[in-house]
């Protein structure tokens, strides 16, 4: 397996969706390829950072205002 073939499977590998038969091949490639180890680790970290950091927070005052507006309209039958 070369790096391009590894990369093609990287998404499924990170999501644990690689067919069982292929896992060994991917792991064997990682053992001999530092670049792919780094790519995999930093891609994993990328996902984790975006998942753990709220970058578009809904401020509480705005949230209350929006909720009140939505529910007022619902009560009127929209």
């Amino acid at each position: 397996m070369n790096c391009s073939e590894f990369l093609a499977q990287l998404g499924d590998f990170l999501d644990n969706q690689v067919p069982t038969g292929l896992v060994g091949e991917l792991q064997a490639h990682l053992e001999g390829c530092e670049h792919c180890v780094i790519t995999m680790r930093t891609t994993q970290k990328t996902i984790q950072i975006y998942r753990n950091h709220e970058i578009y927070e809904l401020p509480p005052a705005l949230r209350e205002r929006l909720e009140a507006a939505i529910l007022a309209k619902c009560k009127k039958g929209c």
Partner: protein
Amino acid sequence: MPIIQQAPGTEEVHPDIALVNRAREGDVQAFEKLVKQYDRQVFRIAQHITQNREDAEDVVQDAFLKAFEKLDQFQGNSKFYTWLVRIAVNESLMRLRKRRTGRMVSIDEDVETEEGSMPRDLAEWRPNPEALYGQSELAEILRKTIQGLPPGFRVVFVLRDVEGLSTEETAETLGLSVPAVKSRLLRARLQLRERLSRYFRKNEDGTR
């Protein structure tokens, strides 16, 4: 590809379904619970797609109102949240189109870029790299970085990796095939990784 099948009789009824049923009968308090449960997520998705605060606020209102009006059309064979997200994504794309008058905007736009298919930055990152930036500085880096993705990649990454929808749910929500979602997701992840490397990579002398 392995197909995961659920054994018959093991399907659990999602607690949202009871709220939806009550809301259908006109119980606004039940609908209020659904609003409070999901408004932050809808706002986040809308902001990611429209890149505009006012539009995102409008999307939150319009998406919930549309959902309330159309509750009868909710089939119950998908999650309420996924159904709501689909409405929010459509509303967001509509706003984006209005802002870019005369230009068609769809989630298929700009996806034919070759950028990001092969990793170029192969440097290791510093351990715990986000700790090197203040909260607001980091948020700014993450915003700037994700804003640079084509909309068709951005929305897939946000639904799948930030909001935690499954690949199948993301495909259903966006009207894409599962392979198309997977391919866009991988390219989005690799492009973001490449761009974040600028901020997070280890310098050769080991300093920030």
